[in-house]
């Protein structure tokens, strides 16, 4: 008897997931349509107009940045077809999802549904829980019935949940719940969902962009998919989004979830711990009764509702004033990626997601580099910095670029601290144990020891292409110089700059631009300054070693222990990447990735679409790691040799070939 009912359940599950995938399809369509609309409207708006009244834009900062970001996207679209819209979508989703989690309303998983139904068959548990009664405002009965604007309260959750689940592909769910679930169920879901072409595409997109265990993540591949996909989705949009019977059904389960207060592990939870859900079952059962007939008549209404939901969600994003930028990240091989970042993301987080997507090996040297072409300067963003905060300093017509590139000097300080911290003139070798002790001594005391760096540097005259020699000293409180005719005693030093408000940049080819005495130049300026100004200070060193010593010294004085924390964090990730038999499990959401499940690979490889590429991907892993370690070795060798080694022309390795 029980067995029979179980079969029924499985069947229901299969159906469900099928519908769901159609549903996903439409959701994506709707979203993309929304985006397209926005870009269109921006097209109409023309950049000129945007630039016309700078005053206005400054008055509304949030609005300004939003428009600005869209403008960037627009520009990106115009520049060519290399736009990774699907990846963008995925980013958007993840941001949304985060947003909803922050709003303390956990999103509901879509694929919780089958389980829900399964659970429903069981008798409700006796205890109906105090917890439940406390969530009275989310009473299922009321929410299920009314498809009215009052639902807009929840719509953000719903959307984020849907989007989230859409992109968080099913196989991941299977993977997570793998141990606790009989394999057949997974199969059901998988096979059952392979419906239409676009369906498959959607999934592969979500795979490629969201979860790195799918290898189809190189921009090229996803681009192709994108091309296939987009027209269809636009069609769907124009058709006015024929709705699914499913949307309302989702509601009850959502309530449950909200009530349970889970965000990430829901799948696991409701598959393994049924008792948790049992107390809900009775409610859900009641609410579901008589649903189908009711729904069928309201197809269009549901569609409208959905559109409304998206609109509200967008509004909510604006409301929350979370700035988002659509950014274009350039690679060393002249390709580029477009992605979305929100204002709370640190450089580390953005780097992580870029690394996940580009499969270029997990070296701590990967950096985000800001290049200001107008001033011919660049700097590596520090991992703890906020990316958006830095990018909003760019002007609208900016030629600035954000590069995603491997830079040896990023953490050279920590790889060979003896060359930077001891104030010696010559490079030297040091045992690893001693390096560690040295770093410990410098960064882990009650205060950070700023290396004693001093010496003659060239200082560019304001507004002239002439350079003067000065004796500079670095102190924790800033950069000083010795005035003419004075001795080198602290009390007579003149403060050249304090470091609170300035960032340090490498100058590029100042020999030509400013007639600098050497190629080893650095510039100090307020991050907001983007054009030539007397407030930018240019210094020139006699050799590359001095340059790096100064830059690192200034970094230490400015950021202190944070630098070391960044490095340790980066190294932790690198080690984790090494440990894993497959890089593919690397963080799905940056930072929150935890356990790597060895058998996960076998689990998700039977996920149909992305099967063959992912196994190929694994094979290439070992190659990557060896390349990586090679690079590491080379890195330490090359470090001091030349400045040219700074830009390491290493392409992100394309790992997969077979997707399309």
């Amino acid at each position, binding site marked *: 008897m029980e067995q029979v009912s179980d079969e029924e359940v499985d069947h229901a599950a299969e159906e469900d997931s099928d519908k769901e995938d159609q549903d996903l399809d439409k959701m994506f369509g709707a979203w993309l349509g929304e985006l397209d609309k926005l870009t269109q409207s921006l097209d109409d708006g023309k950049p000129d107009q945007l630039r016309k009244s700078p*005053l206005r834009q*400054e*008055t509304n*900062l949030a609005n300004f940045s939003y428009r600005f970001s869209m403008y960037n996207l627009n520009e990106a679209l115009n520049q060519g077809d290399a736009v990774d819209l699907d990846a963008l979508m995925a980013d958007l989703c993840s941001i949304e999802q985060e947003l909803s989690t922050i709003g303390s309303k956990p999103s509901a998983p879509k694929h919780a549904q089958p389980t829900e139904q399964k659970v429903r068959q069981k008798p409700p548990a006796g205890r109906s829980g105090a917890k439940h009664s406390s969530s009275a405002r989310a009473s299922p009965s009321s929410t299920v019935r009314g498809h009215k604007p009052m639902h807009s309260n929840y719509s953000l959750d719903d959307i984020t949940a849907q989007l989230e689940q859409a992109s968080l592909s099913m196989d991941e769910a299977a993977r997570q719940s793998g141990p606790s679930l009989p394999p057949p169920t997974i199969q059901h879901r998988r096979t059952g969902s392979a419906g239409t072409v676009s369906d498959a595409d959607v999934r592969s997109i979500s795979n490629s962009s969201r979860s790195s265990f799918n290898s189809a993540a190189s921009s090229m591949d996803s681009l192709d998919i994108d091309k296939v996909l987009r027209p269809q989705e636009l069609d769907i949009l124009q058709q006015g989004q024929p709705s699914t019977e499913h949307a309302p059904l989702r509601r009850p389960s959502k309530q449950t979830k909200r009530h349970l207060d889970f965000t990430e592990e829901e799948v696991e939870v409701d598959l393994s711990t049924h008792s948790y859900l049992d107390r809900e079952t009775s409610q859900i059962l009641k609410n579901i009764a008589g649903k189908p007939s009711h729904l069928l008549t309201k197809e269009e209404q549901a569609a409208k509702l959905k559109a409304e939901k998206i609109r509200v969600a967008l509004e909510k994003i604006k409301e929350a004033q979370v700035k988002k930028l659509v950014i274009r990240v350039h690679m060393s091989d002249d390709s580029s990626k477009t992605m979305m970042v929100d204002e709370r993301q640190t450089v580390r987080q953005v780097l992580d997601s870029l690394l996940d997507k580009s499969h270029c090996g997990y070296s701590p040297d990967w950096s985000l580099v800001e290049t200001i072409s107008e001033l011919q300067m660049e700097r590596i963003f520090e991992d703890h910095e906020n990316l958006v905060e830095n990018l909003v*300093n760019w*002007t609208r017509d900016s030629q600035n670029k954000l590069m995603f590139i491997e830079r040896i000097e990023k953490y050279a300080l920590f790889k060979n601290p003896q060359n930077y911290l*001891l*104030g010696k003139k010559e490079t030297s070798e040091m045992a690893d144990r*001693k390096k560690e*002790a*040295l770093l410990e*001594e410098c960064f882990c*005391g*009650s*205060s*950070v*020891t*700023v290396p*004693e760096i001093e010496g003659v540097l060239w200082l560019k005259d304001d507004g002239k292409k002439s350079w003067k020699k000065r004796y500079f000293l670095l*102190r*924790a*409180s*800033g950069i*000083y110089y010795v005035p003419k005719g004075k*001795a*080198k*005693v*602290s*009390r007579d*030093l003149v*403060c050249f700059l*304090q470091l*609170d*408000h300035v960032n340090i940049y490498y100058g590029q080819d100042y020999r030509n631009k400013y007639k600098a005495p050497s190629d080893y130049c650095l510039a100090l300026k*307020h*991050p*907001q*300054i*983007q*054009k*030539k*100004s*007397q*407030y*930018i200070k240019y210094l020139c060193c006699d050799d590359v070693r001095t340059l790096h010593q100064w830059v690192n010294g200034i970094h230490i004085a400015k950021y202190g222990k944070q630098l070391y924390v960044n490095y340790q964090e980066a190294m932790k990730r690198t080690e984790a990447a090494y440990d894993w038999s497959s890089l593919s499990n690397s963080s799905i959401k940056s930072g929150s990735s935890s356990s790597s499940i060895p058998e996960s690979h076998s689990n998700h490889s039977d996920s149909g679409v992305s099967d063959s590429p992912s196994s190929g991907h694994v094979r290439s892993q070992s190659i990557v790691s060896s390349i990586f370690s090679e690079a590491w070795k080379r890195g330490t060798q090359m470090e001091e040799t030349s400045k040219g080694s700074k830009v390491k022309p290493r392409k992100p390795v394309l790992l997969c070939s077979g997707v399309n």
Partner: protein
Amino acid sequence: MAAWDLHVSVDDLGPEAPPLIISVTSDLHIGGVILKLVQKTQMQQDWSDYAVWWAQKRVWLLKTSWTLDKYGVQADARLQFTPQHKPLRLLLPNACTLRVRACFSAPLLQAVIEICRVLNIRRPEELSLLKPPEEKEKKKKKEKDEGGEEIFDLTGVVLGSAAPSFYNGMPAHFFDTAETEAIYKMLSVSQPTISPELMSKMYRPSSLIDKAQINSRWLDSSRSLMQQGVQENDRLVLRFKYYSFFDLDPKYDAVRITQIYEQARWAILLEEIDCTEEEMMLFAALQYHIDKLSQSQSSNPDFKSSQNQALEDLDSALMNLEVKLEGTSSTSDTLESITDIPELKDNLKLFRPKRLTLKAYKQYWFIFKDTSISYYKSKEEALGEPIQQMNLKGCEVAPDVNLAGQKFCIKLLIPAPEGMSEVYLRCENERQYSQWMAACRLASKGKTMADSSYQSEVQNILSFLTMQKSNPGPQVASDENINTQSLVSPRYHKKYKAKQLTPRILEAHQNVAQLSLTDARMRFIQIWQSLPDFGVSYFVVRFKGCRKDEVLGIANNRLIRIDLSVGDVVKTWRYNNMRQWNVNWDIRQVAIELEGNVNVAFSCVTADCKIVHEYIGGYIFMSTRSKETSEGLNQELFHKLTGGHEAL
């Protein structure tokens, strides 16, 4: 065995009393001698702290089981039966004098540990005692000392062996009387600054040699006070000797942090350590901030209230919770109140300096909202487009104030893509100035006037202005105001007038104004620690094979060879690269062997080589400390590293 007479003087019989003569044999152990002595005095008292001191040989006869023969005591010896603990006048890092009972018989390290236990200073190994400056200076002061100086007395406190218990963060033994409570306050609250006149009279080292002289006065950690000629009631200086402050924790280290801060402050004010002008201004601002906070704390009638901070925190947390709970029921209301950001609107004068133009200030109608300032031709036109809007986020704000000229200007350096634009806003009066200035400062940090710190910022600026006002006047400034000149070292008294200093200190102050008292002290210590010359103790030495004197600097991680005449660093040796170091006590030469077969040897000119040896060993000991073994101090290792063969 023949009996012979032993002369022993007993302190308690009075200084004039003739020594007691007891008949002993050479195989009598010290315990027996003491027993005989006590019987002979016929005094009923607690003799447990008493021990026999052999003055001629400068040695305590502490091992009661040893015989006189073993100690080598013969009939010509003049022994003294005296308490091992005697009062001592200690000059603390905060320049207060405290009478405290110290152990005169144990090695100095043990005595310091005991003193620190009474004072509730953790990590006593970082401190040590040194002799006060030379006599001639002392003579001058002497009359003053006798009359004016307040001496705190803690000699009555005797601690049991149990770990000190705490009540409200204060060790229990300070609760005995009102006086002891006052002493704890003295120890844990920063002392007010002294007048600049007094300060400029104090001794300041002017050269490296002067600084090296200070280090010649350190007492030897491995020998007892009595052995080093210290007498009862002598004046000694308690200071942090090793500049590696391990595990500073505001929770347990109230006294320690205060005393480190005080030592740092005096080191800076008395120019023992050099710093730049900018750094001096920051130190001054922090001192001002700390003084003000300590004053408001101590002016509070209930001293313990500061310790009740936790309770206050709880209160505010509860309040917050309440607000939050209410907020959920009526979100819209609270949202409105949150989004309702206060504005400033007023007529101000604006001036933009441009090259070759002498434009005067021009009046506009200004509105300060959020973090932006907009200005309009007049109030009536405020509904339309502003002439310009300036977002102050990330900008630099500096005061440009001249009280005598009634000039209250705010200088703004606003970053823009094209560079920084310089703008001056001129206010009519102090009130207006303080409001706009505070708003500008908050805006530069991205905060609005809705921020809770706005009002305190306004008050800060106002109080600074009044301070400036009261200074130049010859009439007695009320002691609540802090003299800006007493916040900087005498060098800057000469260089700047008070009204020049005040705006600069004020400027530095804006970066630290939000710090709590403890944070401000910690910040001060940190900035002090990051000075390049921090923690370097100087000694004049002569290197083997060199003809002239040089300076050796000893820091917590390295030795520095410094040219005496120029002051330049010649060479640095890090302890990490040091294989071993030792002292040839016969020729009193310190030899250091470094990795790579580098050998250095030097003799010490200004200080005993034991002091140098102990300094190096002490720092190496400090670096062996770890948090796990934080409880017990490995005294044995300390002595092994610092004592040298002489002590063993």
